[in-house]
């Protein structure tokens, strides 16, 4: 801003000036003022006080001056003016202070000599402005011309003239008309550059293309937007809607001129509105639709579920790209005005944050249901993880408010997430169906609950945090009742009474306890004790497998639980063995077969008969039972074979000889021990195959 660069085409301006001068006067200016001004100018030259005067009022201004020479004189005048009363006047100081200072110094500066060329200069400059402000030659963002620079230099000069002179000469002084004229010119150019400012901000919002970035890097003297890490930028949605560096330079200059000219408010309004619209537009483009809370509330989960990823994307995009980008942009355009930048940035983004949070609030108050938990946790994580990124961008006061708002939304989501998780309790309790699952297979409730728990535990750290944070809030809140999930850890059903157990783990244990109790009750629905054992084994096994299959849930349940569960399973197994097979083995008991060293044949026949019948019956029923876990199935078969086959083999070995070979043997010995093995291997696969067909 120091010295104007002289243009080489200085001479060309001269003839042009004379031609255009007259139409311009008639066109734009009030002749009266013009004439008056000239008189004043002349008068000013007359009553010179002789200090600080470097330029003699030129005797023939109309002939000698050009825009350039007049500008030079004005610059000199301005710099002298500012040096006199020791006012710091570099354009970017606070304009309010300037005015006050000017007023204070009025007595000192009354001797200001208005150079004779001033009126002439104003003529020139008005003409320059008119030429520049035609649509063909407006400020061009992408190819800023020398012309633009000269233009803005003139704007600066006019602003300085106005602020300096209006401080010295009041409008109601004899210099009034002159001041008025300068004021009018200033208003006109300010209005013009305001439009340009708006146009540039609106029209130039382009996504920075990769090739453009290269260009930016080449001319490294200006700030670029955004440089946030993404080198190749494969993802267009990571782009911040910014401006090429030439445009930024121009925006920066215009902002500076507007602010130092005292048009800060206009500048800020334009900036706020256009940028806010850009953000809205960008959010729309990445698929974030505004939905009212009422609508969210009524929405089917399937539709709402689809909106949540868009919201998460929008939130992250704001936190990681848009807001940092806005922050940088505002600092690039208003680098000398940090508090202004702060307030512009806050005003711009605060509403966007609140709007985003409203969606989270809306989701949080939507009807609770089990399947929502995981999306809730996604939202929770977004609010938790992306807040710090935003936080640092805001000035403290605004950051505080937004932190509080975000925390509130996060709590609400967290609270609801806990309620949803705790609703699992109710869904277990309310599953009171009286129909046993055929074949003692894994109950759907077990499957559902275990899969749900496993999924929940994939969010383990988050859920743990949610439970911890929320429990605190709950206790502090006296009007709402404490929910049952608290203190669940102390229940008798729990395997793990560790004092340090986290609230989530406690709740999980509680759920497992309830599930156990529920299954226990369901096992009673089976009339056959063996089958109820199989049912318990199946379900227990399923739980154990699920827990062992996922490190997270295993961690929560702990080894103690697993060991306990395994030993429970062994007990069921033993009970089953006893119920089914001990009875059968009773047939093979040697006792009572020998009387006085002799085998009692009818008894022996009876034994074989009942063994055959019993085994056939077992094969028939238990063949239709279901053990879908292969390992469990084979464990069962192996353990059955291990007790039955040796006993049968030895019984046969000992007593088959007492039966007459042929028909009798055929009648009573229906199975060879290999047959027994085969039949045992047919148990628990859910097919009620009868032996008859096989034989």
């Amino acid at each position, binding site marked *: 801003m120091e010295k104007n660069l002289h243009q080489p085409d200085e001479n060309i301006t001269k003839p042009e000036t004379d031609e255009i001068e007259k139409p311009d006067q008639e066109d734009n200016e009030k002749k009266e003022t013009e004439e008056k001004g000239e008189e004043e100018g002349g008068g000013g030259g007359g009553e010179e006080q002789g200090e600080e005067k470097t330029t003699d009022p030129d005797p023939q201004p109309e002939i000698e001056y050009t825009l350039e020479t007049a500008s030079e004189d004005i610059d000199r005048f301005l710099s002298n003016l500012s040096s006199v009363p020791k006012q710091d006047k570099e354009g970017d100081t606070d304009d309010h202070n300037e005015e006050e200072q000017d007023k204070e110094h009025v007595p000192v500066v009354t001797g200001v000599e208005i150079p004779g060329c001033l009126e002439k200069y104003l003529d020139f400059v008005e003409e320059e402005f008119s030429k520049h402000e035609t*649509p063909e030659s407006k400020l061009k963002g992408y190819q800023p011309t020398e012309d633009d620079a000269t233009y803005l230099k003139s704007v600066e000069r006019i602003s300085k003239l106005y602020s300096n002179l209006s401080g010295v000469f009041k409008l*109601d002084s004899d210099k009034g008309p002159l001041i008025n004229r300068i004021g009018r010119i200033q208003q006109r150019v300010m209005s013009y550059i305001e439009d340009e400012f708006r146009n540039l901000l609106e029209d130039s919002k382009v996504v920075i293309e990769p090739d453009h970035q290269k260009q930016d890097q080449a001319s490294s003297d200006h700030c670029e937007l955004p440089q946030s890490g993404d080198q190749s930028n494969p993802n267009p949605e990571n782009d911040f809607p910014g401006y090429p560096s030439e445009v930024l330079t121009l925006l920066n200059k215009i902002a500076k001129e507007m602010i130092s000219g005292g048009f800060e408010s206009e500048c*800020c309004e334009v900036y706020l509105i256009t940028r*806010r619209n850009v953000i809205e537009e960008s959010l729309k483009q990445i698929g974030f639709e505004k939905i009212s809370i009422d*609508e969210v509330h009524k929405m089917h989960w399937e539709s709402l579920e689809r909106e949540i990823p868009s919201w998460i994307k929008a939130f992250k995009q704001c936190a990681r790209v848009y807001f940092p980008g806005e922050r940088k942009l505002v600092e690039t355009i208003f680098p000398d005005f940090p508090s202004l930048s702060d307030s512009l940035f806050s005003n711009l983004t605060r509403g966007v944050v609140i709007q985003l949070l*409203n969606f989270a*609030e809306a989701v949080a108050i939507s009807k609770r249901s089990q399947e929502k938990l995981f999306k809730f946790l996604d939202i929770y994580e977004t609010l938790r993880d992306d807040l710090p990124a935003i936080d640092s961008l805001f000035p403290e006061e605004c950051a505080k408010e937004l932190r509080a708002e975000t925390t509130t939304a996060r709590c609400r989501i967290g609270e609801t997430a806990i309620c949803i998780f705790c609703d699992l309790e109710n869904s277990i309790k309310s599953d009171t169906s009286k129909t046993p699952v055929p074949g003692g297979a894994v109950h759907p409730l077990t499957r559902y609950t275990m899969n749900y728990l496993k999924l929940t535990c994939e969010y383990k750290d988050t859920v743990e945090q949610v439970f911890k944070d929320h429990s605190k809030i709950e206790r502090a809140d006296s009007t709402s009742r404490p929910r049952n999930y608290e203190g669940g850890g102390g229940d008798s059903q729990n395997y793990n009474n560790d004092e340090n157990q986290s609230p989530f783990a406690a709740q999980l244990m509680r759920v497992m306890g309830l599930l156990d109790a529920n299954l226990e009750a369901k096992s009673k629905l089976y009339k056959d004790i063996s089958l109820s054992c199989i049912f318990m084994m199946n379900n227990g096994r399923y739980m154990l497998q699920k827990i062992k299959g996922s490190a997270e849930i295993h961690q929560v349940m702990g080894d103690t639980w697993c060991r306990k569960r395994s030993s429970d399973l062994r007990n069921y197994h033993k009970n089953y063995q006893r119920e089914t097979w001990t009875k059968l083995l009773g047939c093979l008991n040697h006792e009572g077969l020998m009387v006085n060293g002799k085998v009692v044949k009818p008894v022996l026949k009876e034994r074989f008969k009942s063994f055959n019948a019993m085994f056939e019956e077992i094969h028939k029923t238990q063949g239709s039972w279901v053990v879908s876990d292969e390992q469990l199935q084979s464990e069962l078969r192996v353990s059955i074979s291990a007790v039955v086959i040796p006993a049968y083999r030895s019984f046969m070995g000992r007593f088959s000889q007492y039966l007459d070979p042929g028909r009798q043997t055929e009648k009573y010995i229906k199975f060879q021990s290999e047959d027994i093995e085969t039949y045992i291997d047919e148990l628990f696969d859910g097919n009620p195959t009868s032996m008859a067909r096989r034989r």
Partner: protein
Amino acid sequence: MPATEYQGSFLGRISIRRNQVIAMDGNHEQELEDLEHFQKHVSDRFSELLSPPPEDVPADALLSISWLRKLLDVFLCCDAEFKAILLMGRDPSQISKPPLDRLIPELLERAVKALDLCNAVTNGVESIRHCQRLAEIAVSALENKPIGDGQAKRAKKALTSLLSAMNLDDKEGTNTKTAERSWSFGRRGANKERAPVRSLSYQVAKNWSAAKQIQAMANNLVAPRGNEANGLASPVYIMSTVLVFVMWALVAAVPCQERNGLATHFPVPKQLSWAHSMIGLQDKIGDEWKKKEKKGMAGLLEEMQKLEKLGQSLIEFTDSYQYPGETEKVEEAAAQVAELAETCRRMEEGLVPLQMQIREVFHRIVRSRAEFLDVLDQGGKSSMPLV
């Protein structure tokens, strides 16, 4: 905040008494007394809102910023008291039987709609702030004495933007109407089509309508009759009415998305003594609205109306103004500028707190709703899932 002080003592009293009588299962006399108090408080609070402000404090006029803030305070107080009556120390099963099992979910539905209205109004306040800043530009330009031509033009430009921002068609949330550009310099000859000047005005959602929301809230609002009128149905009705009224008044005052046809207010039975002041307010606001409906949709906010009126007349002034101006006109304008400056000052002082208070109301509604759901949840485990 006065709201909290008020509710503090009241809640304390109720909770102590409840604790004493809790074992007696719904001491009916006690309950009737509580209800009476509640009605009386509601009535008192609204009659305070209705009473004209003292001459020396014109800032408190009907539908002014500070009046709206009082209104929100009233809402917060009523809400606290209402919850105390319905929830404190009460067996959850009591509020989950008929007719409350229907009335409370209805109230909670209204609460959800109120949340959107809060947000719409917050957006509206944002655009009011924009208007305020434009008015401030005009003030700072016209406060100069004497006024230069440039300053007059500057003021005129700001005021023209102000009026066009005020008269936006509120059907389009994000407005695309071209503002008046007659003030623009430059661009001679080529009146090229340019991007419309957009203003600060944001949607709640596409196709969302404040008017429809209010109507939906008022739709099933029916005063309890017969036996119900003496029971807990009555405070639920009162609170619903308060909620709808407060939202309606906010929407009347602050520009927001799609609010046509709200001049006719929802009916509140005249025989209910607590409602007299509210009905009085309804009539007053309704009349204002009808007067205003024909011209623009800037909202009835007192300060905005001032801005509009002063803005128009100052535009006329700046239109014909030529330095150094005619003394008489200049003096007349100076008075208006002073009034405009005063209005801006009130807006500067009041709008941000108003905005924060609306947010507070928002959060309160969410919280109260959650508390009710909690209790209903416990009381009505066996019945249908709620809301």
